[in-house]
Every structure is written in C-alpha cells, then in structure tokens.
C-alpha cells in the first residue's frame, strides 16, 4: 500500500469531497463523499461508468469548475495546500505547474490554430515568466523528444492536425510534463487511440513516472488499462466510492457486485467465443435522483431487500480482512467471498 511503500506524506489527499452542481432540473450530486490519496511515484486508477463522478473529481482537483455554479465541500490537499476555497489566482498557479492534466481526445484538446511548439512554449512560459523564448523553445523540443516524437525540431513547427492520434497524445503529454508536475491526472488518455498505440502511451506514462517520480491519477472505464498501469484502484459509482484497494485486490478478489459486473462484462481471450457478453443490466443512475440506500441496488443481482438494508441505508466504505481494501456493500464479507468464488470468477476476464 501507498503509505507503507513511500515514506513521505501522500502528495494528494482528498478528504470527504462533495461536488454539487445547481441546474434547472435540480441539484446534481456529482461527487458524494469521496476520499483517497496518492503519493509521488504511485498511480491511482479511478474506474467507473460515464457519470460516476470520476472526471468531475479530477477536474475539481484541478480547480476547473465554475465557482458560481458549483458547490464544493471537503478537502483537497495538494502538497499540503487545500485547493478547496483557495483563491482562483493561487489555484491557477498550481495548475499546469504542480498538477497537470491530459485529456481523452488529443485532437480536440489541442488548439487547432496554434502550432504544437507554440502551445508547449505557452504552457512553459506561463509558469516561468522570467524565462527567455529560446529557453522555452529548447525545453519544449526536449520534451517532444522525451515523449518519443521523432524529429522534434520539425514537429515543433507543425499544427495538431498534422500529427497522428498517438503523436498528438504524446505532444499533449509533453505539454503536461513541461513544468515537471508532481501530480499528473490522465482522463481517459487512451480511449480515443487504437489498441497498439494505447499500449505505447501507457508504457510511456510508466517510464515518465519513473523518471519524474510523479503521482498519477488514471481515469478510465477500461479495467485493462488499470491492470497495466495502476498501483491502487478506486471504483466509483454514482459519485461514491464502491470499492478501493490495491490493483491485485480489485482484480483478484473484488468484493463489490459493481466491480464484479465490470469484470464480467469484459470478454476474455480464453473464454468461449460464442458465449454472450454479460453486461451490467440497467443504466447508470441519474445524479439528480440518486437511488435510495446503496445507489447500485436497482442493478445489483445480489441485493438484499424486503427485508434488507440495500434500498434503505447507504452502505459505509468499510475495511475488509486485507489491509487497504475497502468495500461499501451491505452483503456480509464471507458471503461476498463465496459469491465471487462460486459465481463470478469464471465469467469474462475475471480469472
């Protein structure tokens, strides 16, 4: 676990984060009491469906929400400083400098009218106001080279549309890392790329992490990506944490029915090719009207209701037998272990 392997305090500590948006239809509870921490050199994977609050969590860490329409409570400690309630100007200085972010679709995430080099130089200059243009350019080319872009001198003067998808994402990573951030948030960085390029990008992130000793938050809905890169995993559902543990714990001994669903729904290379895929039934819940009790209960095949607490009481995130593994589920731990062993572990990639 994080706290045992690294001696220092975690670089990012999120305590009981709640994010609400006021909309015309009602209050959206996008994040509802989420806590986690990431140390430098470690990678936290956040998994969940669309609307589970994973992207909102990361954007909140970056301080990118419109303060007028968003209500944020809790604590986000970045290097010991609380971002919640911090002056906009101070958060801005943190952004891109201490905390950087890369996005899902690198084509739309880079400005179409500015050259790649110019955008990276801009990212460097804004946090190094004293630096000369030449220094910034040298640094940008160095970064392009470091992320594996061939002929960085020439590429410096090209526009995003002249790059391939994978190269664009590399350029995006170069831009994010130009200021040596201590925390890198990657929001589905491989979703828009094809599988071979995905693997290259993940390898690159792994390498860069070793070199820069940064903390990484990897947001994805792809458990394959998680298993390749994460040390720790946070499974989110409807703005809450469903399960939290090391990557081995989540992949080998998952204890939340939602995590089971995610694992079962991935087809396995070794399984029966004619077997139907097993999706999670139903749809992600509305974040305006979150289901009562455990938000997952309407879709949970193992729910305990009438009598049962699942639709009445929100389950707490509780430790299980192994250290560092936490699950929020009303089903007793022993029963969960039995269900997983007997029913879940043979389906999909859950092996």
């Amino acid at each position: 676990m994080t706290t045992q392997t690294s001696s220092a305090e975690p670089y990012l500590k999120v305590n009981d984060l709640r994010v609400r948006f006021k909309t015309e239809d009602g209050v959206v509870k996008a994040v509802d009491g989420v806590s986690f921490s990431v140390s430098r050199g470690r990678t936290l994977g956040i998994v969940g469906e669309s609307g589970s609050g994973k992207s909102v969590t990361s954007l909140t860490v970056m301080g990118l929400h419109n303060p007028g329409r968003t209500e944020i409570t809790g604590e986000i400690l970045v290097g010991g400083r609380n971002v919640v309630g911090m002056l906009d100007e101070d958060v801005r200085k943190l952004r891109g400098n201490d905390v950087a972010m890369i996005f899902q679709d690198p084509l739309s995430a880079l400005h179409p009218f500015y050259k790649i080099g110019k955008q990276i130089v801009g990212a460097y200059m804004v946090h190094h106001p004293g630096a000369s243009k030449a220094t910034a350019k040298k640094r940008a080319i160095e970064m392009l080279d470091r992320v594996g872009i061939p002929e960085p001198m020439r590429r410096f003067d090209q526009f995003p549309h002249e790059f391939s998808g994978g190269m664009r994402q590399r350029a995006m990573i170069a831009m994010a890392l130009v200021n040596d951030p201590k925390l890198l948030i990657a929001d589905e960085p491989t979703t828009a790329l094809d599988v071979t390029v995905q693997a290259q990008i993940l390898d690159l992130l792994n390498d860069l992490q070793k070199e820069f000793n940064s903390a990484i938050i990897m947001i994805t809905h792809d458990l394959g990506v998680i298993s390749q890169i994460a040390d720790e995993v946070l499974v989110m559902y409807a703005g809450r944490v469903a399960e939290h543990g090391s990557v081995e714990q989540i992949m080998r001994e998952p204890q939340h029915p939602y995590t089971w669903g995610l694992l079962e729904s991935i087809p396995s290379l070794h399984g029966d090719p004619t077997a139907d895929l097993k999706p999670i039934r139903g749809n992600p819940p509305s974040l305006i009207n979150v289901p009562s009790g455990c938000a997952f209960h309407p879709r949970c095949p193992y729910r305990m209701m009438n009598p049962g607490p699942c639709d009445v009481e929100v389950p707490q995130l509780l430790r299980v037998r192994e250290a560092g593994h936490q699950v929020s589920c009303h089903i007793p731990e022993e029963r969960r272990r039995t269900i997983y062993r007997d029913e879940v572990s043979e389906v999909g990639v859950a092996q």
Partner: protein
Amino acid sequence: MLRFIIKRLLVALLTLAAVDVITFGLFFAVPSSPAAVMCSKDCNQEKLDRVNHALGLDKPKLTQFVEFNKGLVLGRDIVYGDKTDRCPAPCLGYSFRTSEAVTKIMARGLPVTVSIVLGAFVLWIFFGVGLGVYSALHRGQFGDKVSISIALIGASMPVYFFALILLGVFVFGLGLMDYPHFVPISVNPLQWAKGLILPWLALTFVQAAGYARYSRAQMLETLSEDYIRTARAIGLPNRTVHLKHALRAAITPVITLAGLDLGVFLGGVAITETIFGMHGIGWQSVNAVFDLNLPVVMATVLIAAFFVVVSNALVDVLYAFVDPRVRLS
C-alpha cells in the same frame, strides 16, 4: 497558392461574364422601351425611331451586346448623332438620360457608397463583435441580458425604419445636425465624417446586432471546446484564455461573414443612400432602373458583382491564413 489564385481569377471572370449576359438579357426581356421614357409628350413613331437610333437601340441585340463588351475591354467609338466620341476602356457607355459617360457617373457614386459602407463596416465589426464577445464572457449576467436585448432590437429593426428615427430625432426633432450631405474626404475630412455620421449609425446599429448575436454564439461554442479546458488546465490566466485562445477560434467564421457582407454592401446600399440623400451606387442603380437607363444599370450591376466576387475570393485566401487547417488548392 499561385494555382489557387489563377483558378479563382478565372472563376471570378466567368461569374462576371455570366452576370453581364444575364443583366443584359433581363433588361431586354422586360417589355418596355427606354426611348418611350425619354420621348417627350407629343411622342410619335418617327421620334421614337430617332431616339432609338441615337441610343443605338435599333441595332440587333447581339451587336449591342458585343459592342458594349468590346467597349468594356478595349474601349470603343460611340457615334452619337453626327458626333463620334472615343470612349476609352473600361467603357460602360453613355447614360441614356444625360449623355454623360457612365464611368464618370460611377466615379461620382462610388466614393459615396465606399465612404458610407467602409465607415459603417469598421463600426459594426467593432461594436458587434465587441458586444458579442462581452456577452459570451458574461453569459447569463446582467450585462449579457442588456446586450442581447439591444441586439434583438437591432436585428428586428429594418434599416429604413431606424434611419427615419435617426433623422426624426437628430435632424428634425432636436436639430442637433444638418440633414446629411456628402463631402469628399479629400475636400474636408471633418465635414466628410460629420455628413456621414447618421448613415453610419443607421447601418451600424442594424448590422452590429446581427454580428453581436453571431459572435456571441461562436464565442460560447468555442468556450465549451476541449482546447479551452486545456488552456485553463495548463494554468493560463483567464484573459489569455478568453482573448487569445477563445477569440482566435471564434472570430474565424465571423471574418468570413464580414468579408461577404462587405462585398455585398459595397455594391450599393440603396435604402440608406436614398433616405439620407446620398447619391451612391445604390441610389444610382435604383434611379437607372426606373429610367430604363441601360448603361447605368449594367454598370451598377457589374460593379456590385465585381465586389461580391472579389470579396469571396479574398475571404477564401484570408481563411487559409487564419485557419491553418485550410489549404488553398
């Protein structure tokens, strides 16, 4: 680039030729006689024939057309009664009404129209885009609501109505200004501007409203783009994000619209010119149509078409400079 320009030039010439043929054809398709308009009260066939001969309208239509276009390119000799005048290229013929060379008439009208339109153009772009960008950046706030309301009033108000209000209030009501009249900028720049204030205001208000709405929409769309989120995520201050990254992308389609509008307006703003008593191309073209004054009609239509064609080509070239994704080929 060179190939593009040559191609555009050929297309432009083709368009102008088409406009030339169509206008000429339309003029004669209308069952009316220019001679009859000019002929005095005690008109008879003999007189009509004489007028028709004097105007060259007794020649076959094709000959007239060829002569007109030959004059346009090479210049021509015009036989008027027993006199022969050399009309150098680009010869647009002589006015049926005043026997004045049409090029001279156009040379009188063009500065008026250009003065009105260019001045108004600068103002409407400045205020329209400014208001739109301001609204978008203050979306939903008081300033935004006020700007939208002003733009809505402007967009729903015809120029002749607003022009009459301006005249009614400033000239006839409060007496703050004289009735506008045109003074060439070379004669007295101050008088030039003073005389043009009201037409400028009229055009600006109506046009700026549309531009405000359009640039507000463009700006809002751009602000929701991923690359704006990226710009914030790398820690750029709001000013830079808004005025550099967002405006740069939002302004591009506005440039297109502005170029095309400018081309159309330079061809004459008949209503504005007429209301404010400015004898520009628009006013001349309306009068020429009423008088069945073929050479002037041809000239005004060709000039208008010329501006539209040129502005279209310029917008294309400009677009390639503004948007690196566009290639000229």
